[in-house]
Each structure stands twice: as structure tokens, then as C-alpha cells.
């Protein structure tokens, strides 16, 4: 395992400074370009994916309160914001430390997905304004970013869980505008699931497999999960502890 360049601390300081989000990202992208050839360096960089423009970064061990998911649209939006932060951080890591044998098509697909997740994250952050939760710290220590099968397998799971989270959360939103907005996003997450499935298991039914779509003769339904189910699934991948209060569905 190779080490990252020695200047990583300086880059990180730039990213967490006062630059605009766009400038911070540009620098970050340049940093990614410079280190792409360094190969996999998980332990060295896994803690550096805190959204550089987030409103105050959380710290490992903090408890983040999403508020009243199920009573309050702000809670639902923060729940979505947390999930989008996680997804964006995951794909940033994937592109920063590409798995062995990542070809040009795969890189372009995964880069586009990364950008979509960043856009979703930034939208929720902007929409929430002062009510946004802080930037979260991912914990990807259980993921082998050097392995194509591992990365695509986790990507498929994250996307499928994300879709199920939006499907389960739609009913909790009181505002039709927010419901429509969530609907605009969830279908793109499903598109991601499909294309990643195709990379992972080409020319099969995996794109809409029986493991993610109920194959029953009067079903054909995708997954829907309650927030507490989703939070239990993603908690191991976030250093802070994320909680939220929900009502029975």
C-alpha cells in the first residue's frame, strides 16, 4: 500500500478554510488528480472526506440529532442530507483511490454518480440553511476500495438502501413540494442502482433483481424502509452516532 503525498495536510487545510464550495471542490479535484496514481491508501485518507464546505464539521463520537423525522419535514430533509453526505463521500473515495483495473467507462460512470450525489448533498444543505446538521465523518474502514467487486457491491447496496429510504420517507413529508423534490432524486438513485448492477453483474437481471424488487405476481415493488431501519444499516459507516425520532408507520 502506497502512501499519499506528504502535502495532504496542507490540502486539507485549504479545503476546510474559507474558500467557496466551488473553489474548495476544484482544489479537491486537483488533489484527487494528483493522487489517483497512488493506488489504495485507505487508512491514510478515510477520515478526510468530510464535506469541506459543510456548516461546521461534526467530530467522531458526536451524537447527531436529526430531529423529529415523521413529525417535521426538516427532520426528513436532514435524514436525506445525511444519506447524501454518506453517498457523496463514498464515491469521492472511490474516485480518489480507484480499484485495480477501473476502466475508462467505469471511471466516467462513477465520477458522474459522485457528482450527482454532491449535487444532492449541496441542495439539501442549501435548502436546510441554518437547520442543517453538521458535516458527517464517514467510516469506510470495512470497505476494501482496492477491490472492484467490493466497491461495486457496496455501491449497489448503498444505492438500493438509498432508494428504499426515499421510498419509505415519502409518506412522512407534509409538503407536496418536498415530496416532489424527493421523487426527483429517488429515481436517479434507482438509475444508479441499475447501472452499477450492470457493471457488477453484466447481462443478467441484476439491474432490477429479485433481491431488490419483489418478484411476486401481484407486486413488482421496490424496497421501502423506515428511517430507523435505514439508520441502523448506515450507522456503521458514519463515525458520529445519528439518531432521530420517528412515529410508527
Amino acid at each position, binding site marked *: 500500500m502506497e502512501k499519499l503525498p506528504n502535502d495532504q495536510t496542507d490540502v486539507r487545510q485549504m479545503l476546510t478554510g474559507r474558500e467557496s464550495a466551488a473553489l474548495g471542490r476544484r482544489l479537491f479535484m486537483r488533489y484527487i488528480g494528483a493522487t489517483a496514481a497512488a493506488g489504495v491508501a485507505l487508512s491514510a485518507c478515510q477520515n478526510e472526506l468530510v464535506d469541506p464546505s459543510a456548516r461546521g464539521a461534526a467530530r467522531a463520537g458526536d451524537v447527531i440529532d436529526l430531529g423529529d423525522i415523521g413529525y417535521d419535514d426538516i427532520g426528513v430533509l436532514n435524514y436525506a442530507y445525511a444519506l447524501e453526505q454518506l453517498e457523496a463521500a463514498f464515491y469521492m473515495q472511490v474516485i480518489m483511490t480507484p480499484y485495480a483495473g477501473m476502466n475508462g467507462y467505469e471511471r466516467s460512470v462513477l465520477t458522474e454518480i459522485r457528482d450527482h450525489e454532491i449535487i444532492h448533498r*449541496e441542495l439539501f444543505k442549501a435548502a436546510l440553511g441554518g437547520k442543517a446538521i453538521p458535516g458527517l465523518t464517514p467510516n469506510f474502514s470495512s470497505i476494501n476500495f482496492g477491490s472492484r467487486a467490493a466497491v461495486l457491491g457496496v455501491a449497489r447496496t448503498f444505492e438500493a438502501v438509498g432508494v428504499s429510504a426515499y421510498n419509505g420517507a415519502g409518506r412522512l413529508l407534509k409538503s407536496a413540494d418536498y415530496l416532489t423534490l424527493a*421523487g426527483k432524486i429517488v429515481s436517479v438513485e434507482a438509475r444508479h442502482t*441499475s447501472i452499477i448492477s450492470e457493471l457488477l453483474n453484466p447481462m443478467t*437481471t441484476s439491474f432490477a433483481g429479485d433481491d431488490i424488487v419483489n418478484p411476486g405476481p401481484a407486486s413488482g415493488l421496490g424496497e421501502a424502509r423506515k428511517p430507523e431501519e435505514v439508520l441502523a444499516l448506515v450507522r456503521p459507516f458514519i463515525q458520529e452516532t445519528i439518531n432521530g425520532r420517528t412515529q410508527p408507520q
Partner: protein
Amino acid sequence: MNLQNILNEIEKVDAEVYERLDHVSRRHVFQNLMKKAVLGVAPVAFGSILNKAYAQNSAVVEVLNFALTLEYLEAEFYNIGTGRAGFLTGEAMTTFMQIAKHENAHVALLKSALGGAAVAKPNFDFTAKGAFPTVFTSYQTFLAVAQAFEDTGVRAYKGQAGRLIPAPDILTVALQIHSVEALHAAKVRYLNGNKGWIVNSNGFPAAVYAGDDVVVQGGVNLVGLTGLSMERVTEAFDEPLTKEQVLAIVSPFLA
């Protein structure tokens, strides 16, 4: 291949994957994630849920019948395509058999939910009054029409979601159908040589993609906010279509 198998595959490729972990418990955490992901499709008594709710609200019946009409269209289209000897083979047959299974299931689900209020299946003309004369003889034409149907389906369900707020159980089911249409759409687009997501308002027929080139969401211009391109921002969101827009798209396919 299910997700647990994928985990096993990971272990074959990278035998040390778990040794890299700080704690043995991580393995259990990860397996737990996979296991729950596999089991996430919860059994629901669809018919009884829907029947109970739709009786309270005629708007819900209207939305479900609108959805049923689209599902009839898709199901029959794929049933004909997959049933035509020698037309679809290999990956195409695998793909469209899976899609047909879901569309037929959606028809059965919606019909059982609506009971006596369900609209009858219309007669369809998949040439769209002669616009696509090779729809069941040319794979490229079939793919083009399939992509149009799937992307329309995604946008159509999205446009009706707000009307289902008073019936949360039905809203959830509609969202669960909606996300499956998006899974289909991306794979069909891939077979068609396109990206899985819609760029700007690019695509054919134009009416299917009209208005999908939106860069302002929730009052925020996301190109300005993120510094990313218009293409990337528009890919990240699927816009709704109104019922009228959807009917204009599908009406040529009604015989």
C-alpha cells in the same frame, strides 16, 4: 446473484478483507447490512390496504387508474416483444423478460387494488398510427419505444405523487413502483447506447423529455451553487410530467 453472494464473492477475490478490519464485529456489521438489504422487500397485504384507502378518495382512484393504464401499455408491449419468436435473444431477452414480469405484476396489483373501479385494458397500436412500423421487427425501434415508455413512466408517477398525500399507504406503493420503473429505464437506456440518466432534455420523442433540463431546485440554482455543469445537474434530477403531458405522449399508442 443476491447480495449475500456478492459478499461471498468479495471474500473470494480478497481473502483478507476481514483481516483488514479493526474488529471482528465489523464482519457481523457488514453481513448484517447485506442480510437486511436482501430481506428488505417487506410483504404487504396490498389489495386490502389499497381497497381500504381508495374508497375514501376519488382522486386516489383516478391516480391509480391512470397508473394502471400506463402499466397495461407497458405490460402488453413487453409481452408481445418477448413472445415474438426469434425477435429478442440473449441479454435483450433476459432484460425484457424481467421487465415484463414487473409490469405484469404492477397490472395485477393495481387491478386487485381497484377492484370493480379498475379501468378496462384499452386496445393498443404500438406502431403509434404508423410512426413506428418496425416496432416488433427492428430491435432498435423496439428499444427506442421501450426507453420512451420507461422514462415516461418514471416522470408520470412522479407527477401524481402529491395527489396521494392523503393516502400514505398508497403513496408508498406508488413510490415503490416508481423506483422500479427507474431501474428499468436506466437498463433500457444502457442497451440503447445512452447514459442511464437523462441529460438536459435530450431524447426521443422530444415530448418524453420536455422540461427535464431544470437547474433550479428548491429555489437554488445548482450550477451556480456547485460549479458543476448543466449536464451534470440535470442528470441528477428527473422532472415530473403532468397527466396531460403523459396522455399526449401515450395517446398515439391507443388503437
